């Protein structure tokens, strides 16, 4: 099963190496990892997607919690959450296929962000399924290059992931 972990970390040098190193050392596979700032200065948020059964994910979370710079680990796949990934696709686009491609992009609510004589770059965001679907369609025209940001996720509703204690509901 696929799991998405949200990890709040102190933004100190080496923290990414600590987290990534833990995965490789203990033989856990990461599908994707993203890092970014949060509203709190000095605290970053990582989103890690990984494949594994319950026991593996439990062990991953426990080991992550042991890292001193890790403030909070939560498994977002156990609750309703919004998950998004951004992808840029460079696709072969001859003058006669351009409008077809354009139509596909519109259907997926993507954007064309660059056009050249025989290629286009398409920007599209969504969950795994959606991204895989557009890739499948565009393969028909010839995909030259893909880059993906990896998943980010937020819990649905007013609930937030905070550094102290469990995820809690805000009063509003």
């Amino acid at each position, binding site marked *: 099963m696929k799991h998405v972990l949200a990890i709040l970390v102190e933004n100190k040098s080496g923290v990414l*190496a600590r987290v990534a190193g833990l995965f490789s050392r203990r033989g856990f596979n990461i599908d994707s990892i993203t890092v970014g700032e949060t509203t709190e200065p000095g605290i970053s948020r990582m989103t890690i997607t990984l494949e594994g059964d319950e026991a593996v994910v439990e062990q991953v979370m*426990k080991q992550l919690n042991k890292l*001193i*710079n890790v*403030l909070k680990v939560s498994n977002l796949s156990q609750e309703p959450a919004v998950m998004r990934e951004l992808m840029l696709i460079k696709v072969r686009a001859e003058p006669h296929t351009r409008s077809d491609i354009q139509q596909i992009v519109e259907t997926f609510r993507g954007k064309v962000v660059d056009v050249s004589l025989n290629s286009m770059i398409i920007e599209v965001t969504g969950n795994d399924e959606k991204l895989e679907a557009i890739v499948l369609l565009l393969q028909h025209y010839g995909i030259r290059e893909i880059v993906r940001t990896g998943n980010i996720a937020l819990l649905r509703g007013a609930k937030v992931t905070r550094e102290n204690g469990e995820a809690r509901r805000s009063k509003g």
Partner: protein
Amino acid sequence: MIIAALEHEQVEVIFGYPGGAVLPLYDALYHAQIKHILTRHEQAAVHAADGYARVKGKPGVVFATSGPGATNLVTGIATAYMDSVPLVIITGQVATKLIGTDSFQEADITGITLPITKHNYLVGSIEELPVTLAEAFYIASTGRCGPVLIDIPKDVMEQEGTFCYERNREIPGYRPTYVGHPGQINRMVKAIKEARRPVIFAGGGVIRSGAAAELRELAIKCRIPVTLSLMSLGAFPGDNPLFLGMPGMHGMVAANFALTEADLIIALGARFDDRVTGKLEQFASEAKIIHVDIDPAEIGKNVPIDIPIVGDVKQVIRELLKRVQPGDTSDWLQRIEEWQARYPLSEGTAPSSGKLKPQFVIREINRLTGGKALITTDVGQHQMWVAQHYCFREPRTFLTSGGLGTMGYGFPAAIGAKLASPASTVICITGDGSFQMNIQELATVVCGNYDLKVVVLNNGCLGMVRQWQELFFEKRYSQSLLHGNPDFARVAEAFGATGLRVSTADEATAALEKALSVRGPVVIDCLIDPAENVYPMVAPNRPINEIITGRDLE
């Protein structure tokens, strides 16, 4: 500033080795009151600090220089990490502006030690230093203990700053749980009351948390037999009738049978190492398992747990003792007694051969010291023989590298043990292979005139490797025979220690008596029967009730 912080932490002794990047630190040490032990290799400095910490129960402190000084520490740090030993290691680093340029004696020691430290730091400025040192001591010695390394660039050491030191400061991402969940403890009470075939399996955590007295009370009150992992020998008296001995690969038959047939296993501060469990799928298949550990990640890591309790073992047992009621274990204890009578420990094959038996030497040490000595070992056959044949009675009297299995640990650890407990008789029992891995420390012990004894069980080979080759590789003794071994007694003499060499039982007894009667370092080179193997034995990845005993092979 570093020295001032160490004084605040009441550090009495530092183990270390100077070099270019720590010159400012050693200069500050020159006028300080803290004792510094100069080992002859950085690895020995960590092992000595580790031995000190295991005996004293507080962090051992190590200094080393950048580059090779720091990398020489790695084995010692990994040893301490695997056995949860509190250490604070301070390494010098090249000056800040040189970091990352592959400068002279530069090594990324925080990167290298990332997976073998509980935490580590590269200090960026003098302002960070007091906080970092305070955090390091706090992290090393609380929760599940472990080594913490602080890498300090030379220019930071030379800076001046205001010193403001606050011990045990709170760290946002670090909050160990000490108190066990009351509901879980209630479940534990119920399980103990209902159990008919319970076994307590205690590990090193019992010693680290100082729970030996509580363990004894629990076992005796509830009439539950106790098996101790290698790391916890001494946490329960070896001569108590409820003691089963060590379990696992070279464990006692009764201990392995008891774990296999138990209906309840109470695991206290143990981590179900593969050397204990054997083939996991067949380990304790009939038992409900309670696991008490301060590290939540250990619970359920190797073995599924029925009643998990995160907390400090001592506090949890204390809480438990308020409510626990003994179950009926009389049939079970009788069964265990039968196993113990039927499968006594082998004192060696063909004891009448006239050859000196290692088991005999260890039993003599036990007899002559009354089991009250502080014993360190290296790794291999001699380590297992000590675990089997020496009767440990008190916690913190047996120091051995259990997790990492580091040859070369025992001798330097004995130095640390002696400094931690100067009144104790300290004996390092080692092998001819292991001793040579840190034999240079003879200079350290002669220099300090430490009253410690080294007993080399010399079989002229890497005994445990040779044993596996005999049993599992059709006697192809590939690279396990140590031709060219020196006469260890003469080596000791050359360093200025007393050296004795023995090859019979009578000589061994006389030499041990002599060694224990003189002050100062003594090395006894015991030429033992090289064919002797460690039995009982469970083959790797076999269930622990499938036991090879020496008798099968006679």
